[in-house]
């Protein structure tokens, strides 16, 4: 395995993680506000189809991405309206939309199947592209991939280093406290769900106008990616940096699956591609188990020093979900 092969491979991993990053960062923002948008799987498909259709009709890639963001925001609006205003289960509405939007995209996408359409051109960043190794790895991509790098840091900065970000975390953790401090919980939850949906809505066009280059209906192979994105959001512990790590790990293992298939024909590539999921469940278990009550009881029976040690290890791993995730808010 020579260096060039490795570098091109890793560069393709960074590009392949782009759409997943949009979905994961969008969902992270939504869930930080206390809303689960479970519709991601349908959202990616319908924005992929819709974005391609608009770009195909208007010959404008920009309009295609814009359409993706608008459709994503609309789907998120249905989730927000049904759960916040109509007080229905977020999970139920999101789940129905996940299935219905997927089928809707197959149904409406028939005229655009396998049509040659516009595709985002590659664009190396002048200057940066000539940095040894890093240039080849990071800066000979396309605009959407650059945007996907940026959005990780922007989202992290916003959530953890700004005042509105603090309020965002507040309405997901203790909405009542945030309300008393003057935050309009209902309005903010609407806004963040829609913004998260718009960001996630870029994922579909990033596939159909960039990576996959077109709409192939059920053959697009996009069904399932939204569920993966939801899983990575949890894996990321509602932190954009950790979520980005999850998305890159996933794309890397997928690439590894393809590479290893020619070398190890005994292991089907699909097995390596889903290897992150047992890992994800294990991570979830490790970060959550410190919250379980039986652990406290078991620990209490142990000698003092051992107990402190275990308690410290558990605390360092703990990353609970936003405390009010999925819980409706009523201001009396």
């Amino acid at each position, binding site marked *: 395995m020579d260096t060039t092969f490795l570098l091109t491979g890793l560069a393709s991993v960074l590009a392949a993680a782009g759409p997943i990053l949009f979905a994961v960062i969008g969902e992270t923002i939504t869930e930080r506000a206390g809303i689960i948008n479970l519709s991601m799987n349908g959202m990616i498909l319908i924005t992929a189809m819709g974005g391609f259709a608009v770009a195909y009709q208007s010959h404008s890639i920009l309009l295609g991405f814009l359409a993706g963001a608008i459709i994503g925001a609309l789907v998120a609006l249905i989730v927000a309206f049904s759960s916040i205003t109509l007080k229905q289960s977020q999970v139920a509405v999101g789940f129905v939309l996940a299935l219905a939007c997927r089928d809707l995209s197959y149904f409406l996408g028939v005229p655009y199947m396998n049509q040659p359409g516009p595709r985002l051109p590659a664009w190396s960043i002048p200057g940066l592209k000539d940095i040894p190794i890093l240039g080849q790895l990071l800066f000979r991509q396309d605009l959407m991939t650059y945007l996907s790098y940026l959005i990780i840091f922007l989202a992290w900065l916003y959530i953890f280093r700004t005042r509105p970000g603090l309020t965002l975390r507040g309405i997901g953790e203790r909405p009542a406290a945030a309300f008393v401090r003057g935050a309009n919980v209902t309005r903010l939850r609407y806004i963040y769900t829609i913004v998260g949906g718009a960001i996630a809505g870029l994922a579909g066009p990033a596939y159909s106008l960039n990576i996959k280059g077109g709409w192939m209906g059920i053959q697009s192979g996009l069904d399932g990616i939204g569920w993966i994105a939801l899983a990575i959001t949890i894996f990321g512990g509602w932190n954009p940096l950790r979520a980005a790590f999850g998305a890159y790990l996933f794309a890397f293992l997928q690439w590894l699956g393809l590479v290893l298939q020619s070398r190890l024909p005994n292991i089907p590539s*699909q*097995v390596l*591609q889903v*290897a992150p999921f047992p890992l994800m469940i294990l991570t979830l278990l490790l970060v959550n188990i410190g919250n379980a009550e039986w652990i406290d009881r078991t620990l209490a029976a142990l000698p003092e020093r051992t107990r402190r040690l275990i308690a410290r290890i558990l605390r360092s791993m703990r990353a609970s979900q936003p405390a009010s995730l999925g819980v409706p808010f009523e201001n009396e």
Partner: protein
Amino acid sequence: MKKNIWVNTAFQVGALITAFLLSTLLLVAAGAPPFKAYAAIFKGALGSIGNVENLLISWLPLLLTTAGVLITFSAGLWNIGVEGQMTLGAIFTTGALRLLQNTSLPPGTIIVLGILAGIIGGALWAGLAGVLKTFGGVNEIFGGLGLNFVATALTIYLVFGPWKRPGVGSMSGTQPFDQSLWLPSLPNTELSPWALGLSILVIVVVYFLLRGTYFGLRLKAVGKNPKAAYLMGVPTWQYSVFAFLLCGAFVGLAGAIQVTSVYHRLLPNISGGYGFLGLLVAMLINYQAIWAAPVAFFFIGLTTGSVQLQVLYKLDSSFAGVLEGFLVLMVLMGEGVRQRLVKKT
């Protein structure tokens, strides 16, 4: 009180009509004559004996997954891992049949053992999600989602790895079993009276379990308000885990039936979306087991009948999924609107 029932019904009917109107608009937008299209779906579902047989064959697994998730929904659990549980049922059944097919046991015994293995497989996979939730604090939606992918990976590994066909493994699945290991079916069809009987038995059991037993009452108490149930002396975590096990057993049976009576082998994606569709059915009927059989029948009729749209109008058969989704979404939203209006007056 009586007036309320009429208002509820009016809202539900209104929601269903809205969903149909939206779907009809979609058909018009796609350039198909809507009434002829609905007629084609109807004919595709029930037009001939062959069609009805196919409908019934697909109805059974949906009935079982619906029955399963009715139990977990009653316990207040969102068992999204139902697809993986069905897959594990199919894997365990295939494993048992492979293990026993060359022994001297009579074929009937092997089939029964195979189906039991499938039930155990589904229950174990569901139990894992339940244990992760109760002892590990892992939300059942997230745990179930992950376990679905693990189940898919396991199937693919088996189909391409240890259980691959002589020669080379392929997406078409493992080597089909000998005909003596097929669940007996009606002549010239894959419809098995055994599978039909078992599935109907399960939904009847679920109906009475939830409606007329102490167990069902306590299960619903755990679902509605676990803290109150716990204070009343209901062993809450045991009930949650048991709900998962029971659901997994029913769904595992669906996987076992797909292997022994429909495909006679293990395929990738053998759960075929029945688990997710079962969740939709359960939501549409508002968790009332009495409606499970007819609504599941209606959904499967839409799904099998919609293939005609592809043949006649070059439309995608996913129209069925769109209509099913709209129906559930509109009923959910209609219920929300009703609650808002009732509260105000």
